[in-house]
Every structure is written in structure tokens, then in C-alpha cells.
């Protein structure tokens, strides 16, 4: 039971980190970004590459974390504005399908681009993971790194909440989310808000990737799985909702942990079944708002 809970929370933290950027971007830009997984992969590559390049045994652990963070920031700050300004900008107000497919094309392009930059051979950045060691919970060892992930997810979650609710930019963002036209009329620089929001989303995707990098072998193909996974989480929680993403992650995390411990065969299907069930009872997701048209 404890094991299920611990595993569930660990997985929930990871999946929240990976998917929260997607929901933020959807909230502001109204675009469901299929290339989100690619941005995750780029973050993983950049982070892993920095660790491999600059981190030597014997250096302080904190440095490796700084490198991962730097990787996420570099990847996000370079790609975010670039993609938003050069590509997404042309799709605002266009058909939803079209926006979806523009990001799908981006997903194809970024996939090969990562391959061109980093090659096909894996990058390993497990130093931070193994250096942290283990902690025993109920006789079963867990990596301390998982606790870092939980902490990071909580930090990101709270940080985003504070940003949305306590800062000027957060209020601007909320206004743009609420009504783009009125915001423009009020003199809000909507394009700038969009660029910044997308960049934050990209940094978050890259952050998810960078902090996953120490636990995996960073190879081509890690982007695809993350896409559907984050779709599921974000849809379950309600598109555009921060609280939703948090709760959605938790539900998916616990459901998966139950499956792994009790019905290991069904691990694969759990997430989609949860998604279908939630959507049947809450078509807009747990925290989504239904839109009613006024006549």
C-alpha cells in the first residue's frame, strides 16, 4: 500500500513536470502542442550533453543540477521565442486542426533536427541520479533522486500558481486567457504575452526532459511516448488548468502504480481508460470550464 502511494506520487511528479508546460501553452495560446514531446527531448539532450561535457567525478553534486537547469533554460529560451515568433504566430485565429498539424509538422522536424545535432548514440547523465543514493521506505529502497523530482514538481507547481495569481504578468496572462480581444482593447501587448507564455511552456517541457535525463538513456525516440502521456494528463485535468494538471498527474500516477503492483499486464491501458472514464463524466476534464454561448 505504501509502495503504491510512493510509486504513484513519484510517477505523478514526473508526469506533472513533463506535462504542465503543455497545459500552460494551451491555456494562453489555445494550441495543443504536439511538438511538446520534442521540446522535452531537446531539454533532455541539452541537459545530458552539458552534464556529460562539464561534469567530472568529484565535482559537487549541486553543479550537476545547475547544469541540468542550465540545459533546460538554454533549450527553452532559444526554442520558445523562435518557434512562437516564426511559426505559431502565423496560425493564431486559424482553424484548430491547422494549429494542431503545424505542431505535428514541427514534431517531425525537431525529431530529425535533434538527431542531426546530437547523433543517434545515447547520452548518459546518470551521475546526479546515482550520486544521491537511496533511501529506504518500508524495506524497499527508493532513489533519493525521486524525492528531488517530487520537490521539483512541487516547486514548479507552486511557482506557477504564484506567478499566475500574484504577479502582474500572471494577471495579464489570465486576462489573455479570458478574452484575447478585450485584452487587446485594454492595451495589453497580447503578442508579447503569448511569446512569454510559450517560452515558459517550452522551458517547462525542457525542464521535464533535463531532469528526466539522469534516469534514462537519452536516445532518439524519447519524444513520442511523452506526447500522448502529457495529452492524457492534461485532458484529464482540464485543458489549460494548472490545478487540473496536478490532479490529473496524481490520478494517472496512482492508477499506474496500482496497475504495476496488482495487475502488471494492464499498465499500458490504464492511462487511456482513466482518460476515457474522466471524459465521459467530465467532458471538459476535472477543472475545465464548459463554454456556454450567449445569444
Amino acid at each position, binding site marked *: 500500500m505504501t*509502495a503504491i502511494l510512493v510509486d504513484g506520487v513519484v510517477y505523478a511528479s514526473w508526469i506533472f513536470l513533463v506535462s504542465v508546460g503543455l497545459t500552460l501553452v494551451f491555456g494562453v495560446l489555445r494550441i495543443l502542442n504536439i511538438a511538446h514531446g520534442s521540446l522535452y527531448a531537446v531539454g533532455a539532450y541539452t541537459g545530458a550533453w552539458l552534464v556529460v561535457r562539464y561534469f567530472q567525478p568529484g565535482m559537487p553534486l549541486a553543479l550537476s543540477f545547475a547544469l541540468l537547469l542550465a540545459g533546460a533554460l538554454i533549450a527553452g529560451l532559444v526554442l520558445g521565442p523562435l518557434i512562437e515568433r516564426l511559426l505559431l504566430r502565423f496560425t493564431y485565429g486559424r482553424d484548430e486542426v491547422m494549429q494542431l498539424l503545424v505542431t505535428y509538422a514541427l514534431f517531425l522536424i525537431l525529431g530529425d533536427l535533434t538527431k542531426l545535432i546530437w547523433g543517434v548514440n545515447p547520452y548518459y547523465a546518470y551521475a546526479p541520479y546515482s550520486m544521491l543514493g537511496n533511501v529506504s521506505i518500508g524495506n524497499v529502497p527508493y532513489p533519493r533522486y525521486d524525492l528531488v523530482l517530487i520537490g521539483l514538481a512541487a516547486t514548479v507547481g507552486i511557482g506557477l500558481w504564484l506567478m499566475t495569481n500574484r504577479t502582474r504578468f500572471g494577471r495579464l496572462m489570465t486576462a489573455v486567457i479570458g478574452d484575447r480581444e478585450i485584452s487587446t482593447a485594454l492595451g495589453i501587448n497580447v503578442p508579447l504575452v503569448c511569446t512569454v507564455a510559450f517560452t515558459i511552456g517550452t522551458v517547462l517541457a525542457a525542464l521535464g526532459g533535463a531532469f528526466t535525463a539522469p534516469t534514462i538513456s537519452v536516445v532518439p525516440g524519447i519524444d513520442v511516448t511523452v506526447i500522448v502521456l502529457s495529452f492524457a494528463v492534461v485532458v484529464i485535468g482540464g485543458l489549460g488548468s494548472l490545478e487540473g494538471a496536478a490532479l490529473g498527474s496524481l490520478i494517472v500516477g496512482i492508477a499506474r502504480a496500482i496497475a504495476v503492483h496488482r495487475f502488471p499486464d494492464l*499498465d*499500458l491501458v490504464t492511462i487511456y481508460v482513466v482518460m476515457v472514464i474522466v471524459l465521459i463524466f467530465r467532458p471538459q476534464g476535472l477543472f475545465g470550464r464548459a463554454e456556454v454561448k450567449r445569444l
Partner: protein
Amino acid sequence: MERQCFMTFRRVIMAALAATAMASATLVPSSPAAAQTQPQELKIGIVTFLSGAAASPFGIPARNGAEILLESINKGSLPAPYEKKGFGGVKVVPVFMDEASGPDPISAYRRLASSVDFVIGYISSEHCLSVAPAAEEEQKLTVLFDCGTPRIFEDNSYRYVFRTTATAAVDNIAAARYVYSRYPNLKTVSGINQNYAWGQDSWKDFSSAIKSLDSKVKIDAAQFPAIFAGSYSSQISTLLAADPDVIHSSFWGGDAEGLLIQGAPLGLFSRSHVVLTAGEPILHRQGIASLMPSGVVLGARGPHGPLAPENKLDAWFSKAYADRYNTEPAYPSYHMAQAVLGLKAAYEKAQAASHSEHPTTAQVIAAFTHLSFETPSGTITMALGKGHQAVEPAAYGVTKVENGKVTLTDVKRYPVECVNPPEGIKAEDWIARHFPGAKNCPK
């Protein structure tokens, strides 16, 4: 009204013509391959994964293997018995194709087949299964080089299709034998395998082989994470809690490496005896080999890499490969070598039999059927599937870390007749019936 009718009709016709024009513009017919005219050179289509998750662990090493072999073959720099230049004097030219090519594997295969003389390829079992019937229709000699499913020649027989590696069942039967003899007090076995055919079949074969060897061993519920799931911490903690004597895994590529990264610090590899049936490529990954602890049972899907027998061909192959690519060849490179060398041997045998420099496809097929040929991994015989499916010996070893270097010790070799089912019996049944006819198994 009349006029409008006419206008619409004209529009329909123009639409039809426009559509056809677009269709034909994009589908320019190419002239059929000039395969049967006297070739100056032989074109060989080589299909491996150049993109996606299987590219790095399998596709690229295989492609590299093909590249270096074909170049050396054209130069005539291979050791005996392959010292002839080209295929019996005929130059060979590779045409590489991504196994993930669109729109679907069959369309891509047919396009390739139309422009080459032979095809070597396919890592994914799904692709092998779907390409085999297409090869029959195209009447194109096609050598499957890496995929593992036994279904290809167990469920069907093919004239144009050959497979120069043993099935994955062989890997898992040998793994079970190795585990069984190494850990005589074995009580519980569990596994962690990817939730798709490769993982499911591997676990089924391994667990039933163990059961067949000793019915008292308890088989625990195995873990089946989704392929490329990335994070296995839940599965690892479940396995740690269950604490079985042996954990079987057919993980490959990034998944296998992820399991090592996540599992090693937690003691997954020291609490239980772990068997990685496709784990050998990890030893060639410089960044990660140091994580590999002692005591892990590793396989290479046959006697490849560090498990290869000592012979001149292997000495040449591993040196040439390492010189060029700065890394040792992993088993997919060996599998590719088997396919290329098998085809070369068959082609040259057909030349001799037909007294012609350019034997027909039928003659090459006849020569290939039941052929035995030398490879870096020893002698391979096309013994099953009416002479179209190779049998291979198997080998397993256990890792030993010394001075930061990982080697395989306690290597056991399983001769062909110990781990391959005889012709006419499905691997599954052979296992269930306690391996009738198996002999010469090492203790």
C-alpha cells in the same frame, strides 16, 4: 439551369483530370529493374532502422556492419573463405533504406525491391512478418537478418525468404538452461519485459522453458511496462519487494540502459540474478558500461561480440569495425554480417553450380537452401523452414568487473542441437514437451 448544369459537368471533368494529373505527376513510373540482364554490379537493398528508438542500438550498428563488409568484399580484403572480390567477382552496391520509411513497410519494400537485386533487412518482427509474403509476390530474394519471431517459418513456408539468424526462442531457451544450471537452488523467477510481442514472447519462452526444466520453480507475475516508458521505478520497486531469485528481461536499447541506470543503484542487479537476453550491446556503450555490476547474465542473441568463438573472420571483423567506428561491433552488426556473408556464399555457390558469373535468382535460392557458411560467429546452417531458417548455437556469460573493465566469464556455449527445435516442431511445443531430442547440452 441548363447552362449551370453544363458548367458543373465541365467542372467535374476538369476536377477528375486535375486529380489524375496530380496522381500521375507524383507517381512517375520508373523502369523495371534491369535485374535479369547481365549486371555490371549487384544492387543490395539494406533495410535497417535509421530513425526512431531502434536506430541507435540496432539499426546503425547493423548499417555500419553492412557498409564495412560490402566495402571490404569489393576490395577483396576479407579472410578465407571470402577472399574473392565482390560476389564472385561481381561488384556489390548497397542501397540503404530506413526501416521506418513510409507510407507503410510494404510500399517501401516494394519500391526498394523494384530497383535492387536482393534485399537484406528488417529488425522488427512485425515488418518481417509482413514483408515475407510481399517478397514472394515480388519474387525478390530477401534475407531477414535480425528479427526474432519464430512465426515466420513456423506458420508458413517461403521460397524467396531466408533468415540467417536463429529465432528469439533460442535465446530464451538458452537463457533458461544457463540460469537453471548456474543457480541450482532456484525457487522463484520473475521478469520485466516490454509490453509488445518481443517482450511478451521472450517472457513466455523463458518462463515456460524454466518450468519445463524444473516444474517446481515458481513463476511470479512479470512486469510489462510499455515500450519506451522511460521510467521503471514502480516496476523496480515491485520487483525489489517481491525479491525473486532470477529476473528475466529482454529489454533492448534505451530501455535496457534505463533499467540499468535506474536499477543498479537500487541493488536490483545484486539482490536478484538478472538475465538480460539482449544486453550485450550495453558493454560497448562507454558511458554506461561502468554501471554494469558483476553477476549479470548477458546474452547477445547468439554467439556474437564477446561471446563469439575465436576465428579469423571474427578477429578481422571486430578489428575492422572498431578501427572505423571507434567501438566494438554489437550483435546487430554480427547479424548483418551473417546475412551478407550468407548471401555471398550462396551467390558464389550458385555461380559454381551454374558455371555462370550471373546465376539466376532461382539458382541462388537453390544454393542458399540448406547452406552452411562461415561467419564471425561460427558456422551457420540453414536447417529449418525447409532450409530457409538458420539454426545457431547460443552462448551466455556472466559479467565480471575488474579494474573498471567489464568482461564476460563462465561463458557457456550451447550447440545447435541443444537449443534449436528440430524441423517440424514449433519452438513453443518443443519447450512444452521438455525439449525432445535436445543433446550435447553443457552441464
